[in-house]
Structures are given as C-alpha cells and as structure tokens.
C-alpha cells in the first residue's frame, strides 16, 4: 500500500511574507497529483512543506498540518530527517553530487542514512533504481564515471534514481522537466507513468500540457497580486480541471488567458 497525504489549513511563510494561505487538500495514494498555477503562486513552497524542506530556508515556517498516512509531520517529536526518508524529492535543476560516481550517487541516500549495504545488495539497488529511472541501459557501462559527466536529462533521471533508491512512499517533484529538452522531458514523463504504480507522486509544473498528460488530479493555485499569498482555487480530477472547471480563474488559466 502506498500513502495518502492530508493537508489541513496550511500556511507557509518566509519571514514575515506569507507565501501560501490556508490550503487544505487530500492526495490519494498511488496517483499523480499536479500543482499548477502562475509564477509565485506558492505551489513549489507548498510542495516543500510536504517533506519539511521548507524549513531548511532560514526564516521559513509553517502552520497547519500535513499528515502522511495519518501521522502529522509537523507534530512535536517528529524528526524531519525521518520524514524525508519517507517523502522523497526531485528538484528543478538536476543536482547529482559532483564528488561521486554514478553508482555512488544512486547509493548516496542509503549511505548517508548509514544503512549497511553489502557490495551485492548495493549492485542490486543501483541496477533496480537505474532501471526504474529508465537510465540503466545508458549508463550500465560507466557506473564509475562522475555523475556530472551525464547530460542534463540523464542527470535528472539519475536524481530520480537516487530518490527512489531509498524507497520513499511519496515522491515530490518540483518542476523536474523545466531545465530539460523535450526528449528528456518525454523520458521522464514515461518514467513517472511507471512510478504511479507504486508511489504517491506530487509534481509541480509550469507546463499545463504536461499536467494534463500525466496527472490523475490537478490542483490550481493563484495569487491575487504581488506580495500576496498563494491560495488554492480548484482541486479536482485532471480531466475536470482542464475541460469543465468550476472556477472562472481556472478556466482562464488553462485556456492560456493569463499566467
């Protein structure tokens, strides 16, 4: 079984600036949920609150609750480090560790968590994760080469392999294709379709066509002006959001009238 996420009255701040206001939504397990909306609407910030990465930025804080499998990740006594082991993340820009080989990059999470791993198990994890990320055939002969020797699209798939090597329940993807060419984007979309079988995937994207292609549900966010917080406008099945949205703002946005 995979994991559902319940977001309840969530507010996120950078210092005194409120980036996200009063968001509540439930994300179903084993599905792909897309967050869309204009720049600055807080969708990336919201995503980062789900695995407590938001608070890494100095001055950033959160109120409200995010429950993963019924357990509030913001409850006292919850360790953000353990939260992130269950809720993985892929970033906008591919960020493989430059000091590590391709193989070591995949194993980085496991090793950084200080889990013991035999050589054989390691090989197993590397192959399984790279296959899952659709990268195995391209790199199987050069696992010892530095991760930064790969192309941008390959690096991003390496980062996905690295994220799933630690076997999270949820995978958060923050505009994973925005720095990539169309071919790499397609490869990653294919791969996400496969991930849906086992993971709860949440993806932030600027690309509405992408959201329409890959996601089961779509949440649309907007802002009412500069320095205003982002808010949730509409959250529904992707087909509904794109064909018969209930809000005018959503209709305008998906029709390309603003944003």
């Amino acid at each position: 079984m995979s994991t559902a996420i319940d977001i309840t009255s969530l507010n996120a701040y950078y210092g005194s600036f409120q980036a996200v206001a009063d968001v509540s939504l439930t994300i179903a397990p084993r599905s792909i949920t897309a967050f869309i909306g204009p720049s600055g609407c807080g969708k990336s910030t919201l995503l980062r609150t789900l695995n407590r990465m938001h608070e890494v930025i100095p001055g950033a804080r959160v109120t409200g609750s995010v429950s993963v499998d019924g357990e509030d990740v913001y409850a006292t006594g919850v360790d953000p480090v353990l939260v992130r082991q269950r809720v993985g993340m892929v970033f906008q820009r591919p960020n493989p560790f430059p000091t590590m080989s391709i193989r070591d990059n995949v194993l980085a999470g496991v090793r950084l968590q200080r889990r013991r791993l035999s050589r054989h198990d390691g090989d197993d994890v590397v192959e399984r994760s790279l296959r899952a990320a659709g990268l195995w055939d391209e790199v199987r002969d050069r696992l010892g080469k530095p991760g930064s020797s790969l192309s941008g699209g390959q690096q991003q798939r390496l980062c996905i392999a690295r994220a799933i090597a630690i076997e999270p329940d949820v995978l958060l993807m923050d505009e994973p294709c925005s720095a990539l060419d169309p071919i790499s984007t397609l490869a990653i979309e294919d791969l996400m379709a496969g991930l849906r079988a086992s993971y709860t995937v949440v993806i932030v994207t600027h690309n509405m066509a992408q959201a329409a292609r890959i996601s089961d549900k779509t949440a649309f966010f907007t802002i009412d002006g500069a320095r205003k917080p982002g808010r949730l406008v509409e959250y529904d099945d992707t087909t509904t959001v794109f064909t018969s949205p209930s809000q005018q703002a959503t209709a305008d946005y998906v029709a390309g009238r603003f944003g």
Partner: protein
Amino acid sequence: MAVIVLDRAPTLTLTTRTVRRGRRAANTAATWVIGVLFILALVPLASLAWTAFSRGLARFDTDFLTNSMRGVVGAGGGALHAVLGTGLITGATIALSVPVGIAAAIYLVEYGRGAFARTVTFLVDVMTGIPSIVAGLFAYTVFSLVLGPGARSGLAGALALSLLMIPNVVRTSEEMLRLVPDDLREAAYALGTPKYRTIGKIVLPTAMSGIVSGVMIGVARIVGETAPLLLVAGYSDAMNYNLFSERMTTLPVFIYQQWKFKGTDVAAYDDRAWTAALMLIAFVLVLNLSSRLVARVFAPKTR
C-alpha cells in the same frame, strides 16, 4: 569612419588633427608608462631570484643538507637542524590551526546566525591583520606565564604561527564552503540525511580541493615567518627533536642568524644564508604551484 569624414570637412580639419594628435600622444605615453611600471615591478624579483640562485648554489651540497651548525665556526656546516625545526614547527602549526580553522568556517557557513556569528566574522578579519611580531609577543606572554620568563620552545613558535594561520584557513575554507551550491545540501536533506552527515559527506568533500589548496598557500605563508620565532623559539645551532622544550631554529631564522652572527669568514656565513634562502624560496614556490594544481585537478566538476 566618422573621423575620416570630419577630416575632409575643411573648417574642422586643423583643430581635429591637433586635438587628435594630442590625445594620441597622451595615449601612447600612458601605454609606455604602464609598460615601464610593470617591468619596474619585476626588476626586484629578477634581481632577487638571480642573487638567490647565483649565491645560493655555492653551498647547495650534501653537507648543507646533512649537517647542523653544531660546533661550526667559519666554513662548512649545514641547515639540517633548521630544516628539522621548520618541519616540526610547521607540522605543529598545521595540527593546531587547520582543525580549528575549518571547524570555525563550518560554524560560520552552516550554523552561524545572529550577533555571535557576526562577531566571529569580524574577529577573523581583525586576526588577519595581526602583525606577525605581535603574534610572537602573545605566544611569549602565554608561555612565560606557564613556564616562566625566558622559556623558548618550538611549540610556542607553533602557537604564534597558528594565530597567523587560523584566520587564513577560516577565510579560504569559508569561501570554499560557500561555493558549494545549496542544491547539494538540499539534495542531501531530501534524501533524509541529518545535517552533520550532509556537512561531513557532501559539503566538505565538495569543498575539499579548495580547502586543501588554501591550506597549502597558508603554509607557504607561515613557513617563511621569522619575527615571531625569533622571540619565542630562539636560535639554536644543534638538532632539537623536541617541540616542547629548548630552542628550535627554522630556515628563516637560520638565514637571520647567519647574517646577524657572522664570524670572521664572512663569505661562509653569507653563502649559507643564501643557500637557505634559495631552499626556502624553492619550497614556497613549489607549495604555491602545487596548491594551484590541487585546486585544478581535484576540483569536483560542478556545472
């Protein structure tokens, strides 16, 4: 193009030409002055290098590298005791200052917030400007408090040199740690890595080539220090393997000693001084060059 057109315009021709000639003359003069200033800066370097080579080679022999000055009056003798002292004191300085310097840089980059961090940054700046002789006086006051006045030891020298080296290490390490992209820290956190392991396994290794290169330049700088050692490590003619007691000579102090306490055979002392100077210059240059090499060869390939 525009200038040519102006040249053809009869009323403007004369003035434009003279103005242009004056401006061009100023430009030529400036070019010459700047070229000459550059050459001028290199003249002392050339003279110094030539002297060190021509005079230093006189005693660049096995005797020089295998003997101390113990019991030597006049010609002969060597700088083995000074090479040993340089090695020991430099080693002790590295051991004292590198861990403190890197840890302080980690504090400033990864942990430091608020007034205390700002104070430390400011103090590192202040420390960078401490004259080396003042560092020597400080080491003297500390050691004389414990061991009584007149105490001399290699360790006191290392303490003085550490005071000069720590701000160096902090500065370069801080710079290198800040160059590590936040992307990498976030990537590690997102993998469920505690902060200390992120620093130890991701941030430090990524910055390491730069830090090592910076430390090497720091070593090159302190290895030529003379004044503080003159105060607290003193002069010696003999081998001293013990950092914790008795006087200990380093190569720069050896040079000073050869000049300061000349015997009647002046040339023998001068030759030894220049040979030691040649060794010291060569060592410092090798350190500088290899630090560049380390920075380039071992740098992680970030985009």
